[in-house]
């Protein structure tokens, strides 16, 4: 068997010196311009750059490679350490900020009124509705929502006289 396809499949192996043409194949090759052209391409291509490849020094190449790989490992480790340290620092700052924040709770205006309701004022219990109205009228304005107990006590003291 020495058809063009057969020869084409055999060309790389022959060009690389792994095998040789059989007499039948040689005969086909000499009589087939298309196969000769392909053989020329394959032969030339198999040689192309061989000198350059063989000129590379394996020892120095592997030494440089191993040095670079070691550097890359160190760099990766360093980056990992720094990112871990960064995360830890960020977490510590967040914890400090969280624990030392001023405790201010915004209160809904209605909530202040509701919160004021349970406060008991026994001094007012005995008053009649009309008396209570007059007392309330004497008060200029409601105590501010953020007034403290001391301020309220002061206000009641001034009212009681």
């Amino acid at each position: 068997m020495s058809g063009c396809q057969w020869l084409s499949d055999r060309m790389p192996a022959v060009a690389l010196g792994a095998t040789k043409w059989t007499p039948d194949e040689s005969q086909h090759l000499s009589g087939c311009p298309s196969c000769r052209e392909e053989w020329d391409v394959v032969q030339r291509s198999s040689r192309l750059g061989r000198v350059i490849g063989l000129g590379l020094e394996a020892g120095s190449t592997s030494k440089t490679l191993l040095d670079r790989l070691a550097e890359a490992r160190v760099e990766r480790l360093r980056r990992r350490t720094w990112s871990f340290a960064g995360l830890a620092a960020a977490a510590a700052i967040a914890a400090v900020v969280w624990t030392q924040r001023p405790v201010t709770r915004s209160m809904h205006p209605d909530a202040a009124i509701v919160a004021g309701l349970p406060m008991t004022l026994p001094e007012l219990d005995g008053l009649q509705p009309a008396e209570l109205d007059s007392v309330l009228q004497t008060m200029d304005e409601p105590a501010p929502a953020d007034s403290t107990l001391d301020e309220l006590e002061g206000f009641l003291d001034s009212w009681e006289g």
Partner: protein
Amino acid sequence: MRGRSRLLVRMSASITTQSAAPAASTDEALVSAYGRGEERAAAELVRRHVAALGQFLYSAGADRDEVEDLVQETLFRAFRRLESWQGRGSFRSWILTIGSNLLRDQFRRRKGRQVVSIDQREIPDRADPHADLAARDTEERLRQGIAALPRLQREVFLLRAQQGTEYEEIARTLGTTPGAARVHYHHAVKRLKELVR
């Protein structure tokens, strides 16, 4: 005493076997050994494949004075992700395709392939200056023709023509079928024939 000599012989044989192990090992075994921290295995892999890689890169269009750097970068990339070589194709085919990708990135960065100057050409050792010049011209046309091939055609052609790789393995390496690899090869040959006429 006889027992002692036998022990020494056995020890020396063991040492010899260990030191010869990398050269006799398969690429798979060397990759595993490197994974376990044996740097000698990496050196052996480089020794086996560096020339083929350099030849491949040059043939695919790399400048002569860039080949060494490209080889170094290709090996560096390959060894940094050795785990991604799953033994589908050969180790050599795998690193050659990494080199091809690297070269493609370089071409892209330069927005096109470089025209190779005459002093960068490979000079065959021939006595006849006319034949020498003609051969150089043909080789240069061939090299530029290979560099100008579509990526798959170029890789299939070089793996087949320079490494003698079978279509089945080329297909495994490049993630295609043996039939498609054969078609790419023949398209490449058809184009290159026109260049060497």
